[in-house]
């Protein structure tokens, strides 16, 4: 079904025609996709989940200088049942990996993952036996934020990228998977 956006102009003497797309006194009828995406992208509740030094930057993102609540994400939830987005902040040790996966599984759909920092995204300098070389080996990652640690602005940019991704989601669309993504699905 094609996406439909209609604008009806009411109570505007300058443009009395119904169906005109002029601005002023208008009501926007959005499609179901857009309404759902709006609700999702403007209230991304992150999970209180810090693993290392990146978590310090994540905390200062919540503070008044950068103020993540401007994007509706100030409600850090202490339980995965109420969270929408998991910000993996810090290196994931192999011992922590099953815990990360379990927390991800406990989050309700729809859920997103931001991999914050070099260590969470790829292992960073810790190319050794103890650290998982990229959290995408455990959970599907939506946005990678490079940096060591990423400054609060960089994390905010990652959140904005995630919002763009949520906004562009269409529910009736057939999703084409690359062979690499298909592998991840079947495994």
């Amino acid at each position: 079904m094609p996406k439909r956006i209609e604008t009806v102009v009411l109570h505007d003497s300058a443009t009395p025609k119904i169906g005109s797309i002029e601005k002023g006194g208008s009501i926007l009828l959005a499609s179901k996709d857009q309404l759902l995406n709006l609700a999702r992208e403007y209230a991304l509740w992150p999970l209180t989940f810090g693993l290392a030094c990146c978590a310090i930057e994540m905390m200062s993102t919540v503070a008044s200088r950068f103020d993540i609540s401007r994007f509706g994400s100030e409600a850090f939830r202490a339980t995965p049942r109420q969270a929408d987005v998991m910000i993996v902040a810090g290196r994931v040790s192999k011992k922590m990996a099953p815990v990360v996966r379990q927390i991800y599984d406990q989050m309700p759909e729809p859920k997103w993952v931001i991999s914050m920092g070099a260590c969470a995204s790829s292992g960073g300098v810790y190319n050794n036996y103890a650290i998982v070389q990229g959290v995408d080996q455990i959970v599907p990652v939506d946005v990678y934020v490079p940096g060591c640690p990423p400054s609060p602005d960089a994390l905010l940019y990652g959140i904005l990228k995630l919002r763009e991704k949520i906004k562009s989601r269409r529910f009736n669309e057939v999703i084409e998977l690359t062979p690499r993504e298909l592998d991840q699905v079947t495994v």
Partner: protein
Amino acid sequence: MITEIVGDVIRPILGGLSLTARRLRRDKATVMYPEEKRELPPRTRWRHVLARYENGLEKCIGCSLCAGACPARCIYVEAAENTDEERYSPGERYAKRYEINMIRCIFCGFCQEACPTGAIVLRKDFELANYHRDDFIYTKEMLLEPLAIAGEQ
């Protein structure tokens, strides 16, 4: 009774609100990030750039000292010989391939310190987040500074 209410309830509320009112007059601490960016400190280290000389030649001579200094081993340099027909840098050699794995890089700036010609510099562009892992391999074309005047070199 009324004096008690005034003393115990209304006065502390007014006292607290007066503090709020005083704070309202101060400057706002919040940086409205996507619309305006804060001024970053002068030594901020973010995205790498491969610099050029003023005549358009690349500064990088492909010596791989940056790759050796990198604690995360995220730089890959492949050097090739300059010829008179195909000249990229003033010296004998130039970097044929120069790749940085941005997702593994920790932005320590050791590459910048190690570079003998000042070819690799870390600038202030921090907006690097992306969706796919493959997009973080920055190639030489992405890292090179654009030519100041088109058609030069």
